């Protein structure tokens, strides 16, 4: 009897600790983001108030200022948003195409020095953006593609190709060779066999690779901050800096832009989150 009771008590304590731990972790994860969202709706006076005001009031002033255009002390948000969309989407598409063909080559063909090429490509991904930005800045200035969409797209394609190869390689390897061989016997060319048989099977891998490529380009700052100069090509991460002045920061406005920046990434990730996890683990473990 007694032993049963202590056992049950211990279970209860453990359960309580488990719940408390989870609650703590989830709050730490959520609160910073929620704080940003909350503050994007609070008037500046309230954000700056001393002692702090805990009952939030509601205003759209920051969003109005942000979308109001450059004339009213706002930031040219629409240009930044447009630049971000064009650059991220284009570079993702190109990187996925190039990466997919590379991943297919690694998964399906045998050739000399294969693992050498593979690790070599990955190492290029490991080059820190800051270190790369110094020479790229000079080279791009010489070629004349600083502050253009083309320049940034090129950079992001190169950044995302190695990781895309890694992920898609793992997925194509999962597909039994017999599948495309059967298709070829049935009269498909290799090209048709790929698009009709292998691509549909590996689709979730390609989707996760695309999401990662998109997030990388959407969020990248170290290179974008040096290779962009004006509204012609500044992306949103660089645009965030517009809210900082020498000694003050327009916190409310910054929060509003932050919300705008995080929303597309959030929506996109929620839609394909299942692929995301599958992509990471398949590509890595079994590849």
């Amino acid at each position, binding site marked *: 009897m007694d032993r049963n009771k202590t056992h049950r008590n211990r279970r209860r304590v453990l359960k309580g600790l488990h719940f408390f731990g*989870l609650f703590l*972790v*989830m709050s730490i*994860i*959520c609160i*910073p*983001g929620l*704080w*940003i969202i909350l503050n994007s709706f609070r008037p500046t006076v309230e*954000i*700056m108030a*001393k*002692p702090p005001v*805990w009952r939030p009031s509601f205003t759209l002033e920051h969003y109005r200022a942000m979308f109001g255009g450059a004339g009213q002390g706002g930031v040219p948000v629409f240009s930044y948003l447009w630049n971000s969309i064009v650059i991220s989407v284009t570079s993702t598409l190109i990187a996925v195409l190039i990466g997919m*063909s*590379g991943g*297919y*080559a*690694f998964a*399906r*063909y045998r050739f000399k020095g294969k693992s050498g090429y593979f*690790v070599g490509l*990955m190492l*290029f991904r*490991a*080059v*820190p*953006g*800051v*270190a*790369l930005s*110094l*020479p790229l800045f*000079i*080279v791009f200035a010489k070629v004349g593609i600083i502050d253009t969409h083309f320049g940034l797209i*090129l*950079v992001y*394609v*190169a950044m995302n*190709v190695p990781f895309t*190869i890694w992920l898609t390689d793992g997925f194509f390897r999962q597909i039994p060779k017999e599948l495309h061989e059967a298709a070829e016997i049935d009269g498909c060319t290799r090209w048709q066999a790929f698009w009709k048989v292998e691509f549909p099977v590996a689709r979730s891998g390609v989707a996760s690779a695309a999401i990662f490529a998109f*997030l990388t380009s959407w*969020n990248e*700052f*170290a290179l974008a901050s040096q290779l962009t100069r004006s509204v012609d090509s500044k992306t949103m*991460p660089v645009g*965030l800096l517009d809210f900082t002045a020498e000694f003050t920061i327009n916190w409310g406005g*910054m*929060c509003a832009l*932050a919300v705008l920046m*995080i929303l597309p*990434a959030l929506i996109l*990730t*929620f839609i394909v*989150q299942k692929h995301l*996890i599958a992509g*990471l*683990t398949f590509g*890595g473990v*079994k590849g």
Partner: protein
Amino acid sequence: MRRRLPEWFVLLLPAFVVVAAVVLIPLLFSLYSSFTPYKLTRPSTLWTWIGERNYERILTDWKFWAAFGRTVLFLTIALNLELLFGLGIALMVNKVTRGQRTLRTVLMFPMMFSPILVGFQFKFIFNDNVGLVNNVLQSLGSDAALPWLVDGNLAMFSILFAEIWMSTSVFAILILAGLFAMPRDPLEAAKVDGCTPWQSFRHITLPFLMPFIYIAMTIRSLDVARAYDIVQIMTGGGPARRTELLWTLMSRTGYVDAKMGLANAMGYVSILLSIAFTIFFFRKLSAARAELGMGG
């Protein structure tokens, strides 16, 4: 007759070309310029060859070594804590029976944040005047406003906190995926044989999770330099260089002081550091895979 290129080569060609054009060529250029006293303000200096003097200069500079040591220390602490927290979170979430999917979705939240956004977010939260942390502390009755980003040690803590907040979820999610994929039988057999929970975790669960942990480490080691964005925004390497990492030192030398040659020499040291991290974890990853018979 024209010899046809092998198919694999044709398929890989675009990848090689774009990587060579955007990464390899600039890197070769920066390798060259790291042997010159190149300054952005005086382009002609690009053609003066000074040998390894830049490297000599940074290798004898204590400021560089301080930044280098701090970077390695920072990465070691951050990666280890991220692994520990990630493992803990994954084990906790794995035990949950209801609402697990929601928890997993919440876990992915920080992965979508841009590093620079994380920097701003925590700069706001740790702000000594209007930040959330100090507001809470003051409302709870503490008088002093803690100078989170102004004091050297506190600033380092804040940056580490931001970095860990951003990257722990990569570990948590991958380890969780590992836990889902784990076969049940060995665990039950161990229970029957009288293993304590700790024993079965140590000898069954953990070895099975190792490849997943190494993937997470490899993915992380590919972009450890993301910490640059956070530090640049939160403190800019200050106060008085107390949070200066290799990357912030490099960008200041290159862009503010315009000493491109010197900065590129530092860049090479940082590239070697990143590559060392990546190769280390890549080898661990393939070793762990081979052990589990997943190689190929």
